């Protein structure tokens, strides 16, 4: 162990300073302005909880919260079972398993916004690539409006699943490798079928790892808005507006050519509220999964 305290302070200072200035200070900044009426110019005016009263009455915001739950829920319901099943399959000594793992993980390395541009062309409502194939194969007679009011949410969910499955598959594989082989051997002697094995052995044995992965998946999917921002900008008619995108729009325009009305005080209050919502959902999940653990 070194005794050089000055050296230690010197070495941790850049990290400490940057984290305080650009990580902690902005949070405190928002905690202050959420009590002010401030549009980005002039003098901020203290209005107490006025901004929060406005949040409570803001139907557009609560619609975006509801959309977030649909988006996150849809993403998780497909992603988690699919990635767990793929992980179970690819954890066995299957020929070509390394290639399959690499292929399934591939989407996670690319930029969500860049791939959303590709998906924008793939799912285009009139002459998109999916529609071309569907028309050619005679499955539909007229183009499907993938980014229209009826399908936009489903399309964004499909894209989110595409980008997430590989990630959770890999985390599940890491968890599966901690389950001792002899448990499965004992089960196969008892004549257990694959579905029973998954439900009665694999999932319970994953235990805390599963809990952590699900929690990570919940928070990540509640926070995601980048691909929606590029693909639909929250439209059409706010159908895909999620809460973090709504929040972004209170501070910045969507593109270099766009414009927006800055709403710093109100935006800070919305930001605080969304953070509380994510925190509450995470806490509820913890509480619920603990309850379920006690039942076993």
């Amino acid at each position: 162990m070194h005794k050089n305290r000055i050296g230690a302070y010197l070495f941790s200072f850049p990290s400490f300073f940057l984290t305080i200035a650009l990580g902690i200070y902005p949070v405190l900044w928002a905690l202050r302005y959420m009590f002010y009426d401030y549009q980005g110019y002039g003098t901020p005016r203290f209005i107490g909880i006025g901004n929060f009263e406005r949040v409570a009455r803001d139907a557009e915001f609560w619609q975006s919260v509801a959309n977030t739950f649909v988006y996150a829920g849809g993403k998780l319901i497909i992603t988690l079972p699919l990635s767990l099943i793929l992980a179970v399959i690819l954890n066995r000594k299957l020929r070509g398993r390394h290639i399959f793992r690499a292929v399934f993980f591939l989407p996670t390395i690319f930029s969500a916004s860049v791939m959303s541009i590709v998906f924008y062309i793939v799912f285009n409502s009139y002459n998109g690539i999916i529609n071309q194939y569907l028309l050619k194969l005679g499955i539909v007679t007229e183009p499907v409006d993938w980014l229209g009011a009826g399908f936009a949410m489903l399309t964004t969910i499909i894209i989110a699943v595409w980008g997430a499955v590989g990630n959770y598959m890999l985390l599940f594989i890491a968890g599966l490798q901690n389950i001792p082989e002899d448990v499965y051997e004992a089960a196969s002697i008892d004549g257990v079928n694959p579905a029973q094995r998954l439900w009665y052995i694999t999932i319970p044995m994953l235990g805390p790892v599963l809990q952590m992965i699900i929690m990570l998946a919940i928070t990540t999917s509640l926070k995601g808005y980048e691909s929606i921002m590029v693909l639909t900008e929250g439209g059409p008619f706010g159908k895909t507006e999620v809460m973090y995108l709504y929040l972004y729009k209170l501070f910045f325009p969507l593109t270099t050519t766009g414009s927006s009305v800055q709403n710093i005080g109100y935006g800070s209050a919305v930001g605080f509220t969304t953070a509380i919502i994510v925190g509450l959902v995470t806490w509820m999940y913890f509480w619920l999964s603990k309850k379920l653990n006690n039942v076993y």
Partner: protein
Amino acid sequence: MIIRKMLLRSPVWALLLITAGFMLFPIVTAILGSFKTNLELTTGATLLPADWQFKNYVQAWNQADFSGFTFNSIYVAVFATAGTLLVAAMAAYAVDRVAFKGKKLYIFIQSFTLFISIGAVVLRPQFNLMVAIGLQKSLWGVIIIIISAHATAFFMVIGFFRGIPKDLDEAALIDGCNFYSTFWRIILPLLKPALAVVALFTFRNAWNEYILPLVFSLSRPDLQTLPVGLANLRYGAGAAVENQLMLAGACISILPLLIVYVFANRSFMQVTVGSVKG
């Protein structure tokens, strides 16, 4: 018996192949589509281009200014990666090897930034700070903000530090090294393979970053990186939207990562598991 086994296995293989097709479809479409004409892209319904249009890339590079976007992306990713590695490795060295006052507080603050997210709100004060020191007009504003978010890298590096025995430090001290030279001469060379993995992770994130450079280029179009410049093409450069240019641009962004991935996909995967475990 063999037939029965194959029948049992066929749903498994079907699932694997369908999922693989789903995962590869957009990527293959992007790469092959980037060589098609706009007309072929919007009406063709074919996989391979009828006539390979290499000029799409020339057009994207020159007319749509992807040369500038690429330069900006490389600039941001390289300096943000180098900065993150240095800041995180130095802090991890101090925290893992020295007992100093405020260490617990430091670790608490780092974990706090990992868990609390108030979204785009923080970009406003971050931007204001950069205005205050005059860095909003250069990519350095973006780079410094990316470096400041180094908590994940810090926890990854400190995980690797635990694998380097402390006896080594003591041996170095006896041989005449001090706190600083032990870091540069003993620890850093040993950490190299681990730092390479963290570098890959950081580089990929900086390269893919969208919202932060978007905010900085709102008033300075010359600061656009690849994801920002590409997303702006949606509105068409005055005329019709040119799908083939968008796909060529997307490929300029994804191909470098794809090539590295072909050779180092295990390192990419190691990062994902490691960052969650650490």
